[in-house]
């Protein structure tokens, strides 16, 4: 099995996610982009797992999903709190943590 196609898809997904994180201002969209990046990594892990016929990659992918789920809980809570105090979802409005 050639992993090239899967890896290309994974790389494309990762770049899409990264662009979303870097370019978008809406916190929810940035959040979704982060999820896309995580899943791109998952795809690569599963692909290599299949290529090498060992299960380690798939196990790692499961861990990523669990951690991502937990992260979503915390992240959404933060976003909601920021929205309540600022009435805005734009990341550029939340820049009080600076020198």
């Amino acid at each position, binding site marked *: 099995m050639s992993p090239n196609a899967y890896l290309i898809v994974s790389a494309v997904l990762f770049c899409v996610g*990264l662009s979303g*994180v*870097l*370019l978008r*201002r809406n916190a929810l969209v*940035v959040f979704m982009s982060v999820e896309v990046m995580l899943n791109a990594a998952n795809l690569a892990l599963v692909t290599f797992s299949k290529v090498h016929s060992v299960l380690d990659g798939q196990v790692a992918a499961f861990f990523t999903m669990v951690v991502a789920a937990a992260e979503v809980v915390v992240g959404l809570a933060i976003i909601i709190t920021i929205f309540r105090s600022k009435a805005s979802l734009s*990341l*550029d409005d*939340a*820049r*009080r*943590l*600076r*020198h």
Partner: protein
Amino acid sequence: MGMNMLLLESGFTRWAGASWLVIALPLLVAAVLLSAGALSDSWGHWLGVAGIAVPFCYSILLFCLMLSAPEPFTSTLYTWLSLGTVKVGVSLLVDQLSILFLLLVTGVGMLVAVYTVGYLAHDAGRRRCFGYINLFIAAMLLLVLADNYGLLFLGWEGVGLASYLLIGFWQERNAAALAAKKAFLMNRVADLGLLTAIAVLFTQAGTLRFSAVPAALQEAGGPWAGIVGVALLLAACGKSAQVPLQSWLLDAMEGPTPVSALIHAATMVTAGVYLMLRSVPVYELAPTVRVVVVLIGVLTLFLGAWIAMTERNLKRVLAGSTMSQVGYLMLAAGLGPVGAVFAVFHLLTHGVFKADLFLTAGAITEAVGFNELRKLGGLLKLLPWTFAAFTCGYLAIIGVPFLSGFYSKEHIIAAAWADSPLLGVCALLGVGLTACYMTRLLLLLFAGKPRWQDTYDTDSTSDKHDTDDTADTEDTNTAADVEIRRTPASMAFPLVVLSLLALVGGLALNGWLQSWLAPVFSVTAPATNWLHFDWLSYTAIGVMLVGVLVAVVWYRKVTPAWFEEPVPAIASPGLYADIIMERGIVAPSVRLTSGVTWLEQRGLDSDAADADGTDGLWLGLNGVSALVLRLQNGSVRTYALLCSIGVVVVLALMLFWVWM
């Protein structure tokens, strides 16, 4: 018989295996005394005596067991350091040499402790003093029981600390605090030597054990044996107050007199000689350095005698004498294995008679309240028993036939003569000088009439009754009639024991010691019959008599005015040693410190930084942090970008590395 031997042998091994207890016990006592505080004031001193008496009993037992089965025994408690292939064990070696030191240290230590009970009876800090003395005993026993240079260094530092604490025992007196600091600093210089030796042994010999070092150094070849020899000599010079580093010993007399007897006469100052004795095989590999050892011994022999002849304070005269006698020991230790045996001989007898002399000096101070020679005198009628004790020590140190100093010194002279006639002449001269300064001291103390009636000055460096200087000087020193206090029994008893030992010690050790130490130095030193006098002995006796005569003639000519005039510059203090130290080392150090301070204040950190803008450290840090702070702008997307750039850079580097 065979069964009996076996039992004895196993008895010895069992008891020798417990040798760590003699270190642990005084250490524990010291910890109790120093932490219990005033709670233990009423019984602390007796606990302190017990902390030394029990090790003394143990040493005697061990010695008796050893007499029938003289086998060295090493007990390894655990591995202290394991660095690469070098292992330093906490191993204690009980052999013919260390058992003698064990007996000397605990024996004199116990007598001194009993004496201190009486001597410091009215001092509030008596318990503290006993804590320090026990600390000293523990460290000294560790020093003599260690079977390698590493563990010896631990004891070496321990005795240095105890010495510092005890010299500065009356720390409220500025002179005592300064003396303690001086002793501490000069001993640190010496420690540098020992550390250097240990470092060289670590890297070049790969072992620190006394038994393995000589062979390893021989294998290492090159100049290493010589370097180790010089470094060890530096260490010994500091601890034993030998020529370049001698001046601390005179000032160390600021401590309580029993402490001077124990630490600065009988035991600690001989630790340097002990180091030389353990390193005799190393010096065999480096004959040139051995000659330096001998030279330093001879130099100190004369310098100490010179100090003893010019000092005007009872204790400082004795300190000069100690220096001079330890010079004898160095000279002997430098002569090789045979000389080393005689060094042990003289070390033991000196430990006894010098402790006797010091404790007598303490008894005099206790009785009259000061120890300035110009105020003393005429004590023969007032303190006849003290006179008797002093005379025993006096006769022993000047080498009157059949007394302890005669045998030990006689052997050293013979060994020196055998090495080179010039050295023999020097050693003989030392006998004359010893006789001269000791006779001078004896006459100044006991002959004639008390001089305190006609002195009127208030300058006082007396030993113990002036802890409260200003208040006390008036009534002790200006009063025409000094009240003579009785010597308590606790002070008299050690004096009696030490006096008797000073008389018979040499006779008892002569001959036996040579065969006893033969296995340690792998040499059978010549032993002479106690009645056998050759021409060298007669010469020594003659020189001694000349020395006595010179002192008597000097005393007859001395006028009261002599006591009033200041000590000539050439004689004070300790022949320019302090001035050399002051100009050569202290002043440059102070200048270096002020230079560094200037640099620090002008260049790095000044209080007036913002005003004159010279604060380099502040400016530098501020500039850099201003640059870095610009990155921290609060924009999440900037942070994300920086993270991504970081990842890309790392990935690029990794790819580049793989591709290369």
